[in-house]
């Protein structure tokens, strides 16, 4: 590791420690906000690991997340809680691999369309299965408190960052950057493009499912309509893009302001949240194409900083 990497590593560890103290000094309100932010930070960062370099917009987050909550809902009585996110991550990875194998051989549009309806399709199937077996929703009553959920999410977040850093240094990360720049070049340099994309897509799949499994106790009552709400996928996309996918820290820079703004709008004018989401998308396309990261890089270039 270079001195610079050690420095960044120490800064990250310090920030993480600071975040981990939130339940100790923060009010319950801020703990709730912190948990929501941690959730979106984990989801958006893992989303950007795949969609950043490849430019494939994945809208499958809600589907994986919902699967994760159902893993907890079905298994929390029979299994120890720590096993559930692991199982969910495994199922999420397998599901992502299947979706990837079908769609990622083809152009990006097919992938977007497939993931767009995926949460809704899984919801329909789960609802149907529940109707067949006579179950409706289910109660997840555990002794897990909000601060434990928060800490678990922080741990998962640290894992995602570490994974992102490792992927960035690995051959896979290098291959993906080439694919993102020019897929034909990548193919001609002997990269198995489909395999690389599928392998990477398994990361957000597994992480989103694990996040869902961890958050299930927070919802107490789980039913398909809430567990598979497609809105979540869009929120994740918007936050990641607002922050910018060019850097590992980018998505978090989008998550924090957007979660706060969302909270204010939900409280003041609950009917206008969709309008906000739409305007945020338009803002990104027309004003901030690289997100806050892009803006930051442009400012630095203009004012000659080298830090």
């Amino acid at each position: 590791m270079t001195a610079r990497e050690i420095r960044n590593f120490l800064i990250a560890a310090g920030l993480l420690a600071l975040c981990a103290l939130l339940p100790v000094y923060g009010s319950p309100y801020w703990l709730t906000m912190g948990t929501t932010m941690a959730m979106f930070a984990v989801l958006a960062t893992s989303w950007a690991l795949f969609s950043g370099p490849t430019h494939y917009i994945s809208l499958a987050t809600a589907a994986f997340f919902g699967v994760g909550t159902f893993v907890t809902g079905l298994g929390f009585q029979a299994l120890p809680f720590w096993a559930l996110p692991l199982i969910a991550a495994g199922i999420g990875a397998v599901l992502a691999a299947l979706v990837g194998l079908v769609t990622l051989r083809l152009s990006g549009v097919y992938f977007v369309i497939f993931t767009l309806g995926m949460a809704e399709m899984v919801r329909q199937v789960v609802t149907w299965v529940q109707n067949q077996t006579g179950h409706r929703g289910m109660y997840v009553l555990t002794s897990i408190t909000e601060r434990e959920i928060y800490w678990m999410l922080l741990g998962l977040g640290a894992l995602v960052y570490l994974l992102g850093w490792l992927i960035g240094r690995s051959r896979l990360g290098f291959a993906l950057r080439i694919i993102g720049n020019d897929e034909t070049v990548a193919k001609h340099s002997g990269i198995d493009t489909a395999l690389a994309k599928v392998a990477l897509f398994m990361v957000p799949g597994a992480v989103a499912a694990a996040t869902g499994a961890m958050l299930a106790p927070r919802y107490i009552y789980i039913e398909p309509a809430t567990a598979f709400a497609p809105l979540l996928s869009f929120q994740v996309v918007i936050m990641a893009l607002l922050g910018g996918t060019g850097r590992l820290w980018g998505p978090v820079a989008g998550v924090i302001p957007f979660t706060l703004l969302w909270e204010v709008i939900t409280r003041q004018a609950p009917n206008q949240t969709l309008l906000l989401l739409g305007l945020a998308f338009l803002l990104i396309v027309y004003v901030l194409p690289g997100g806050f990261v892009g803006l930051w890089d442009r400012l630095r270039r203009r004012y000659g900083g080298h830090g």
Partner: protein
Amino acid sequence: MFILITGLLLGGTYALIALGLNLQYGVARIMNLANGEMLVAGGFAAFWFYTAGQINPVVGLIVIAPVAFAVNWLLYRIMLQPLVNRAKSRGALEVDSILATFGMSFAFVGIMTWAFGGGYFNYAFLAQPVELFSSSYAQNRVVAFALAVVIGGALWLWLTYTRTGLKLRAVSVNPASAPLVGVDVRAISALAFALGGAVTATGGALVSMFFTLDASVGVLFTMKALIIIIMGGVGDIRGTIVAAVILGIAETAVARLVDPGLTLAAAYLLFLLVLLFRPQGLFGKARG
């Protein structure tokens, strides 16, 4: 037989909606994910005409279609043309247009919820049954199907036999070469986008005759139209129509025989089969 005919009637309307999107994606190269909202807006307009002014939705089309044409033309010129101009490659344009039209889609849903409320709306127009092959069907579905056939047929004739139609097809085949034979690609793209929007809004007005809509249902129709286009092949009218009818029949069959809540899952099953076995579309040639 009942499933086949109901599916066919439904598929006819789907075909019209998908034709609209196919014009926008196949010719103007804009993957318009706000297409479903245009449909809902068309449905809202028809509803409003019928309940407020007692105007027959079929007559209402005379107003709805030109207004939708104008709105979509402006949308393309103001919002989407800059993206086309700045795009370095087709892939970059696709990502930009997907994000931008998602934005529009959410903004439209927000505006429509604000203007009309979040409730469901429907109206009873020609709700009497008609007898066909010893089963009965709602008259409004038959009328919607007939109109979809007439409008879709007119569109096909126009595209096949007129000079402007030829230009549209030229841009659809290759937007880079079309200017070489004197086609103004920008104007034709704007025309195709506007026409696609008008066709979709017309489809929305037809759908509203027999289907309960609400402000947020648009994305479901966008989804179905996209699946139909991929099944039928981008820019392929015949494929679009066949795919729409297949989807209509498959949905009706699943709703009747298995569970009405599984219609999207049925569409996905078809989508999956197409992706696995014929990703170039039903009648498409394999890319060499």
